[in-house]
């Protein structure tokens, strides 16, 4: 046997097919375990440089488009095709043949056969037999044998054989359709250096020819992000760690993007009002797409795939947090914009990354309560002169946390970290001012003496006590306030460690905290007076506000930014994420699918059976033989049934 013949034998063999199926299955698992098409940076963090390179070499970050995976698919196509090529003639032959030339000898060799003797005469028997067959859905052909006997060869369910052809043809068709829509053409162009992946982050119109795919590109799956009011006529195809620019035969404009919500707050629908600008059209036309309702124009399907901010404009009050001013500066910015500003004598840069108008959060302590909308938040970075940046997420409205209202700001210094949250208590009229005024007094050392004095006036009620201890008392309070102003509770803790013996620290800490809260109360009153607001009374609301404030101030020292940005006004501008696909293979795939279903059902539910009845007038006997290409229980039962039925028929 020549080697090419042997290769053909192998490829078209069932063993090979099943192995390919298994390999394909296992290969597909990889892509589901390892998250695909992530930004490469994430993989490097996850695996480290060495393994990252290794896995990239294996194409594990986009398994299903890697060369070796395509190779498996191609093997599948080849093997299945050869299999069809090899078996189809047989199948068709089986489909047509009646096997009317079977010999008596061979029939007697059947595992399923029985011989009957009959009393009536042959031409009475013959119609009985043919009718018996027809009634059970068998088609037959009969031939006279030389010895005067007659062989009736019958069959039913031959179309099962078509099932084989359909299923396997379907596989081939589906795979071919899939490969057409896959990125094989692109891969080839890359391989021959005609196309190159763009990795730089540059405007679409500056992307060079080698990284652009022309309008003629047969099949693609690309994305575009359209801000409201913008138009575009190119989309982007992600390829590994870069992208290609896909040119479109028409322009797409977005007039409005809408999210509707259920009463419960979950999103109900995403809709984009699109305008299509096509030189071939007299006038542009409008069309609204939504999830599950794409627009298909010129063979390109446009889907609603996701959404993001499209550059909302924002107004902030920037509160200095460690200094003693109590008035904010106002700053304006926009998402994707970088805004320079200087605080004290240092330069900073604000980078606004995302704005969310709705945030469905579940703030109930036990997490059992209903999630609800807590209003807008903004995500931004504060970058200092040395290029170091922290990321922040600030909520516009105060959030209600265990019964009290706080302005919340999350902070982290790298994307891997969780946000750490600063909670600034809202003042009685739910504003930030209250806290900021208090802070500006407490952090203003020139006022500490005054605070201490007022405090002393109250604390030491008897004249005797005053005379004795007032100065000493006030200086210690001033000292304590000073320490706090330099580093919050942490600094005080450090002071205790250095100056107080082990066993008294606990007690000292408590006293200091008591003193701080009472001092803070005085400071608060001063702040109120300075602002010309009626003074607060000493109830538990005020004291819990003061405690929260002191904690918040202590945290300010770790906030990492010189200002707190309070979002005051916004004008939202959304962007709709569209996916554009052209998949000529789709119809092939659907055709294949129909074939597949037809094929499988006919394979499973049509059972091919054959019956031979050898009518021998000479010996007045009928030889009944039966066979099927699948000998299963149904067949056995059918045989027994027919056997007894023929018995009634003939021997009655």
């Amino acid at each position, binding site marked *: 046997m020549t080697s090419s013949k042997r290769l053909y034998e192998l490829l078209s063999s069932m063993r090979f097919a*099943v192995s390919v199926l298994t390999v394909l299955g296992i290969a597909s698992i990889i892509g589901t375990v390892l998250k695909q098409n992530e930004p490469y940076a994430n993989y490097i963090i996850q695996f480290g440089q060495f393994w990252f390179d290794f896995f990239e070499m294996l194409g594990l970050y986009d398994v299903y488009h890697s060369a070796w995976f395509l190779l498996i698919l191609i093997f599948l196509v080849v093997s299945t095709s050869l299999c069809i090529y090899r078996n189809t003639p047989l199948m068709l032959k089986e489909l047509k043949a009646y096997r009317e030339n079977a010999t008596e000898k061979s029939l007697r060799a059947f595992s399923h056969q029985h011989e009957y003797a009959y009393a009536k005469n042959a031409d009475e028997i013959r119609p009985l037999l043919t009718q018996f067959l027809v009634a059970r859905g068998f088609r037959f052909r009969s031939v006279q044998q030389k010895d005067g006997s007659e062989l009736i060869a019958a069959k039913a369910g031959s179309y099962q054989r078509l099932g084989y052809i359909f299923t396997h043809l379907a596989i081939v068709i589906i795979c071919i359709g899939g490969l057409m829509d896959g990125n094989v053409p692109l891969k080839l162009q890359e391989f021959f250096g005609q196309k190159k992946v763009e990795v730089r982050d540059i405007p679409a119109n500056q992307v060079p020819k080698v990284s652009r795919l022309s309008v003629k590109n047969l099949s693609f799956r690309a994305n575009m992000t359209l801000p409201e009011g913008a138009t575009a006529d190119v989309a982007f195809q992600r390829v590994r760690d870069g992208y290609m620019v896909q040119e479109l035969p028409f322009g797409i404009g977005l007039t409005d993007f809408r999210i509707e919500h259920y009463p419960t707050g979950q999103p109900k629908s995403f809709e984009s009002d699109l305008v299509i600008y096509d030189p071939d059209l007299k006038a542009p036309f409008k069309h609204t797409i939504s999830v599950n309702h794409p627009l298909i124009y010129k063979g390109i399907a446009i889907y609603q795939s996701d959404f993001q901010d499209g550059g909302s404009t924002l107004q902030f009050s920037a509160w200095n947090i460690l200094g003693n001013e109590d008035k904010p500066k106002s700053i304006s910015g926009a998402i994707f914009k970088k805004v320079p500003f200087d605080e004290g004598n240092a330069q900073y840069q604000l980078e606004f990354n995302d704005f969310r108008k709705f945030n469905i959060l579940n703030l109930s302590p036990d997490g059992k309560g209903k999630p609800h909308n807590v209003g807008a938040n903004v995500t931004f970075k504060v970058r200092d002169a040395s290029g170091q940046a922290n990321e922040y997420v600030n909520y516009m409205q105060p959030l209600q946390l265990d019964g009290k209202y706080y302005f919340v700001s999350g902070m982290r210094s790298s994307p891997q970290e969780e946000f750490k949250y600063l909670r600034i208590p809202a003042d009685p009229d739910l504003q930030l001012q209250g806290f900021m005024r208090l802070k500006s007094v407490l952090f203003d050392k020139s006022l500490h003496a005054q605070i201490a004095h007022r405090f002393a006036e109250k604390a030491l009620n008897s004249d005797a006590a005053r005379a004795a201890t007032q100065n000493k008392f006030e200086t210690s309070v001033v000292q304590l306030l000073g320490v706090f102003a330099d580093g919050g509770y942490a600094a005080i803790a450090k002071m205790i460690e250095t100056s107080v013996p082990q066993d008294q620290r606990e007690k000292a800490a408590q006293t200091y905290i008591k003193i701080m809260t009472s001092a803070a109360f005085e400071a608060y009153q001063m702040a109120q007076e300075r602002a010309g607001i009626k003074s607060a009374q000493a109830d538990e609301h005020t004291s819990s506000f003061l405690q929260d404030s002191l904690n918040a101030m202590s945290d300010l020292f770790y906030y990492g930014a010189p200002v707190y940005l309070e979002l005051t006004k916004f004008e939202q501008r959304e962007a709709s994420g569209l996916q554009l696909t052209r998949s000529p293979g789709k119809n092939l795939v659907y055709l294949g699918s129909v074939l597949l279903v037809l094929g499988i059902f006919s394979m499973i539910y049509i059972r091919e059976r054959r019956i031979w009845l050898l009518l021998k007038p000479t010996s007045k006997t009928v030889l009944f033989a039966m066979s099927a290409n699948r000998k299963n229980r149904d067949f056995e039962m059918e045989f027994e049934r027919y056997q007894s039925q023929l018995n009634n028929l003939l021997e009655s």
Partner: protein
Amino acid sequence: MMKTQKIVNSNDEPQPFLKQLSVVDWLYAFALMAAAAFAFSKYSQFMDIYETTFLFGAGITFSLLGWFWKSMRYLVPSVAVISLFSISLYQGDLELANQAFLLKYLIGSQTAIMWMNVLFVLSALTYWFALFKRSAFTAKVATTLVWSAVLMGFVGLMVRWYESYLIAPDVGHIPLSNLYEVFILFCLITSLMYLYYEHRYETKQLGGFVMLVVSAAVGFILWYTFSRHANGIQPLVPALQSYWMKIHVPANFVGYGAFSLAAMVASAYLLSNKGVMTASLPSLEVLDDLMYKAISVGFAFFTIATILGAVWAAEAWGGYWSWDAKETWALIVWLNYAAWLHLRLVKGLRGPMLAWWALIGLLVTSFAFLGVNMFLSGLHSYGTL
């Protein structure tokens, strides 16, 4: 000639299908179509072409089902009547579910489902008892328990469907949208298939095995209900608001159900093959045949489901195949059983090897069904754990 004719007809000649139908069959079908027509006449102004098609499609489908499998002629109307009765008790007010006695303790959505759970577990125990005691009567009781569980389950789903509209008209949707709901569907479909084969093969000895997976699913439902409180009705995320869901999901679960059934039969096969309980179980031939039947039905429906999924994905996500985790695992399951069928049909392989394979197939299937939602991320992000 005439004489022979008569002989032939008096003989056991098979009748064409329609001739075999009894008056009851016709009445049943007529009643269903009448009901559909009535619903249409009453609500047609609210229905679009799809819903109309679904309505009458359902009428026809269930008529045929009842014709091919007579027991359906009792199940379908009972579900309809009880569900309607339960719905009438709500009087359009969700709160009544926890107040009206019948709703609170019998046929309210959640309650009915709880009854389903209980009855399924009971049936499993009863089947095993019957198997060891070799008691035909006990086995009959078990079968009745399964039927009533199925009845309760379907009532529960139907009423849940109605409840979803009570929450808010735009929240309303068919209860096939999260893990809790599809697990109920799984229990129901698996048990129905089992009941069908129990009737076809005239053996009640496999009930214990099949009801084992169902009970496992019940366990999950209970855990999901009590420790995760995930039994609430959630509105549909935009991607799931599609008619495809109504056929894609059930088709899938016919697949899952059949594969699980096959796996349990396989375990019975392996035990019997090792000489355990051989005497009280059906013959190996029967088990082997049942296993094949189940897997091929499962394979057929799973194929359809996957294709429907692709068509749907083409609409919702912009590509008929995105290699997302769920899709890929569906493919893996499919390939697995394709290989199984090849070995059995082409190579004529039989015996323990295939049984083991079918059993392991269950692991693969359950991963595709559950594991993906638990461990992997993807576009199919309904019902995460």
